[in-house]
């Protein structure tokens, strides 16, 4: 970037360093990722989470899972729309935060809500469709988290990308889980569903463009 000629004598702004940008973005993601869980922990021990603290913890963790999941899904569309290719470098971190939130969301349900009563948990996973959907989404995220390392990316080659399309299925299941949980109050589940659909649409649009024309 050139110094602004309109401001004589102004110190020339340092050229934006792309590596620095990514580092800043990653720092911000860490901060945003850790803040809710820190806040929840402190509030829990201060007994500041209202009359049903466990319900609140689970709900907030669930919402953050979806936020990170949708954010991870948004990386490629943002890249396509803005041409900012380097943003891809933060996708793994965002995706891993989504997985981490999904795990603590499930652990809070299993531990704080069900007190690790396995028979009740199994019954829930089997009989309550919203828990079935949520659990399936969590299970689908496990291979994605495991294969998120550089080594696995290299080893899987082309197959890596195909495998990681499962993220859309996991996110879809997460949204469905949210939809089926609420009683009449479908506003936020709808927002999540529309966001996911929008991101998917951007992806499809760009995919069509890349396809060779048939004669």
């Amino acid at each position, binding site marked *: 970037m050139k110094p602004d000629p309109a401001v004589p004598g102004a110190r020339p702004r340092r050229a934006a360093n792309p590596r620095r940008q990514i580092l800043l973005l990653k720092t911000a993601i860490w901060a945003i990722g850790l803040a809710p869980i820190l806040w929840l922990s402190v509030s829990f021990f201060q*007994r500041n989470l*209202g*009359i*049903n*603290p*466990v*319900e609140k913890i689970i709900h907030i963790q669930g919402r953050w899972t979806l936020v990170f999941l949708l954010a991870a899904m948004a990386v490629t569309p943002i890249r396509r729309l803005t041409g900012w290719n380097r943003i891809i470098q933060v996708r793994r971190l965002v995706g891993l935060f989504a997985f981490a939130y999904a795990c603590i969301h499930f652990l809070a349900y299993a531990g*704080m*809500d069900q*007190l690790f009563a396995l028979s009740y948990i199994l*019954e*829930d996973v089997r*009989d*309550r*469709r*919203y828990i079935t959907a949520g659990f399936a989404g969590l299970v689908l995220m496990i291979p994605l988290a495991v294969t998120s390392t550089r080594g696995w990316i290299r080893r899987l080659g082309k197959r890596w990308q195909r495998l990681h399309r499962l993220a859309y299925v996991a996110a879809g299941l997460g949204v469905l889980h949210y939809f*089926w*949980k609420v*009683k*009449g*109050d*479908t*506003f936020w589940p709808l927002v999540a569903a529309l966001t996911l659909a929008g991101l998917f649409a951007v992806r499809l649009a760009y995919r069509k463009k890349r396809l060779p024309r048939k004669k």
Partner: protein
Amino acid sequence: MIIRISKKSDIPSSEITPESAYINRRKFLGASAGIGAAAFLGVGSPDMGPFHAASPLPGAGRPRTPQDLEPNTFEEITTYNNFYEFGTGKEDPSKHAHALVTKPWTIKVDGLCNNPGDYALEDFITPSTIEDRVYRFRCVEAWSMVIPWRGFPLADVINRAEPNTSARYVAFETLWDPEQMPERLWRPRIGWPYREGLRLDEALHPLTLMVNGLYGKELPNQNGAPLRLIVPWKYGFKSIKSIVRMTFTEDEPPTTWATQTPGEYGFYSNVNPDVRHPRWSQSREKLIDSSKLFGYRWQETQFLNGYADEVAHLYEGMDLKKFF
């Protein structure tokens, strides 16, 4: 001497959270233990000196609080509510319901009865003897509390309205006033005003209350001021809040949740551990208890919320899986 008959529906004293206002009660009960207590439908009790002193409503009668039903705290009961007109979050009603104007308040009585009309709240309440009753409260979302209501039998009101012989149901409506209940971000489209209803024999049952007080004080807005229904053996959503209309009908009246999601909520909505909600089990419930680390304690749900001895006969011969 009056002998206390313990009922199956009584809650053992070991199960419940006390409220500070009720701590004195223990001393009082200790002193009067030798005298014994009456049990009225499992909800009767000795006179409660300290309880009574807490700003009673005019016309408050002799409180009836069984020694073995210890209620949730006032804070628990008043900050964890479902009252979708004021928001769908559990804390929304306690934050926003102050906007509800409860004075003056008029209740329209209409339909198949001899004394229809618009009644001022006072005219509605004054002729009845106000009493305190501690009931279990079981939400369809599988949590529960124990709540010291103050009110009077719905039967009083019904008898004064003199329903015709053709009346078989009574329907209720909650106030619907978007001015007092502004939509914040978004509100579910569940067909306002909120509607509920009972079969007439359910409505006339002595356990069924019109409630205008809580913990011996005026009913807080978030709990359905100035006047709400309490049907302790049914899921909480049947116990309609802030009532402005009562209609006697021949046919089963449409009710909000049963209309909105007929597969999930029925007209009867009796608490029943054997009839699961399509999305979750009803076999157990979280008894809200802030003194616990996680704020609750699991307990088995009782058939008809533990009031089966009193009300099971109302449903004799009915398939409760079909009429859920």
